[in-house]
């Protein structure tokens, strides 16, 4: 047989997989390893989906997605973040941010282009860059800085091949929210070196201290920025697979071109449910965000009380405590914790080398479970 695609074959499987396999065979596991809300999609949104099925909205939509949904998304970006996009030429509906990221990278990159990826970061960033023919270039961020992106470190990584910088804020796995100063510095760099910016803002509404900054609204950013967003996290709609891209018209147009041949359109029913999410579910979203915030406070305090150093997570639903004080590496820590106390966490090194020495704990879990997890983790730490 002839060899399969070199780039894909060379891409290692996600480091999360091994832990999934161990955890799946155990009983009584408290999982802090889940990257999705424990809330089910709010009923009014599900009900809208059922209505859509009942009434036969089971067809294709236009490639770019329902006009009503695109109008609502652009209106929301404008009122919430003062970011301005034309719904008809600068916005398209994707099957989640995952597809949006893939489209953006395919449209922006030529073979061999480099994309700077500050890490630790979401596990798909580097593989998606590679699949799009690019080369990911890691730039470390540090817990001591609250995982803020250091523009000087980014600039040091820029080469003549650099095409774009890919960031996520609030971030998976660190929960870090990039300070406005860091975002502005990145925009200045992008202007100076003529780079594109890709901003994964799936956790935008899950910002607890202050208001989220949309990168597309930072002065100077708009013409070179692709903003990715969606409904999976704040609206608890992971399985509906619906997200969006907002980008300057020439970029958005090419994104639609790839999308029309590869995905055709996002699921019609999901788009109708997303319309409902934006028109009537804001109260549900605010209630869920308030709950995450309360759990965040209880859980982060608890982690510190059992002796783990934990940078303050300003967004998303992850705490990323350091386990360096135990002398264990993150994989060993996570595996031993799972086997000894049936608490599943994700080792930080799967999110990049700078994640080593940390574990990702999701607090998208009911409070009693979080409290029990803290008791078990405390017992585990005492046993070391």
């Amino acid at each position, binding site marked *: 047989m002839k060899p399969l695609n070199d780039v894909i074959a060379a891409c290692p499987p996600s480091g*999360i997989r091994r832990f999934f396999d161990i955890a799946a065979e155990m009983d009584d596991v408290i*999982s802090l390893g889940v990257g999705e809300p424990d809330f089910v999609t709010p009923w009014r949104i599900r009900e809208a989906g059922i209505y859509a099925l009942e009434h036969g909205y089971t067809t294709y939509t236009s490639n770019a997605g329902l006009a009503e949904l695109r109008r609502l998304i652009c209106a929301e970006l404008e009122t919430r973040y003062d970011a301005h996009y034309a719904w008809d030429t600068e916005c398209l509906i994707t099957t989640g941010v995952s597809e949006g990221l893939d489209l953006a990278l395919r449209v922006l990159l030529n073979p061999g282009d480099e994309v700077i990826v500050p890490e630790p970061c979401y596990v798909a960033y580097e593989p998606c860059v590679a699949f799009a023919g690019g080369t990911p270039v890691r730039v470390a961020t540090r817990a001591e800085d609250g995982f803020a992106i250091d523009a000087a470190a980014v600039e040091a990584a820029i080469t003549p091949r650099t095409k774009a910088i890919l960031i996520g804020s609030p971030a998976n796995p660190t929960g870090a929210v990039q300070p406005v100063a860091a975002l502005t510095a990145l925009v200045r760099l992008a202007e100076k070196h003529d780079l594109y910016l890709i901003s994964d803002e799936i956790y935008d509404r899950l910002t607890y201290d202050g208001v989220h900054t949309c990168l597309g609204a930072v002065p100077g950013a708009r013409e070179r920025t692709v903003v990715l967003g969606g409904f999976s996290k704040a609206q608890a709609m992971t399985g509906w697979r619906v997200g969006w891209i907002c980008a300057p018209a020439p970029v958005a147009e090419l994104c639609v071109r790839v999308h029309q041949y590869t995905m055709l359109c996002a699921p019609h029913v999901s788009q109708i449910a997303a319309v409902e999410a934006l028109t009537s579910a804001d109260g549900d979203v605010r209630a869920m965000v308030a709950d995450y*915030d*309360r759990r965040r406070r*209880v859980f982060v305090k608890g982690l510190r009380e059992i002796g783990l150093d934990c940078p303050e997570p300003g967004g998303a639903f992850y705490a990323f405590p350091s386990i360096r004080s135990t002398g264990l590496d993150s994989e060993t820590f996570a595996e031993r914790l799972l086997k000894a106390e049936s608490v599943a966490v994700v080792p930080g090194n799967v999110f990049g080398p700078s994640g080593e020495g940390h574990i990702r704990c999701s607090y998208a879990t009911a409070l009693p479970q979080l409290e029990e997890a803290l008791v078990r983790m405390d017992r585990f730490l005492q046993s070391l």
Partner: protein
Amino acid sequence: MREILELLERDSTLSHDTIATMTGLAVADVTAQVRAWEAAGVIRRYKAVVDWEKVEGADAGEVMAFIDVAVTPARGVGFDDVAQRISRFDEVRSVYLVSGGHDLRCTVVGSNIRAVSDFVSRKLSTIDRVQATSTHFVLATHKQDGDNFAEPETDHRLPITP
């Protein structure tokens, strides 16, 4: 401060310590505020939501009925005196003045259908100025005071996801 009430209304077993962490307030302030609310009757009492249908033993549950009551109002008090006379019975769980065909809507519980019927015919309908009653027995409780009694939805999430 309103957030404290909302949290307690959902789960009155939360410790003041936890509430303080959740809200970013000092524990002493939470305690002082809750005590003040208790004293002022803002927080009337703490209780559990019981799904009696799940309690072992066939007659663990009570029968519940909605009773609509038509009342002749009286000068000076309107319906208040009759409403208060009805409210004082232990069998009566709630009394509302409502718009529509009747005046008061009450919730009444009893050990069985007979007990509720007796209460209505002997006590309720014989109160002065009660003109008529209409009784609706509850056959099943699906949701009560914001608590859905259906089985909680299964968590379909995979244990570890990126």
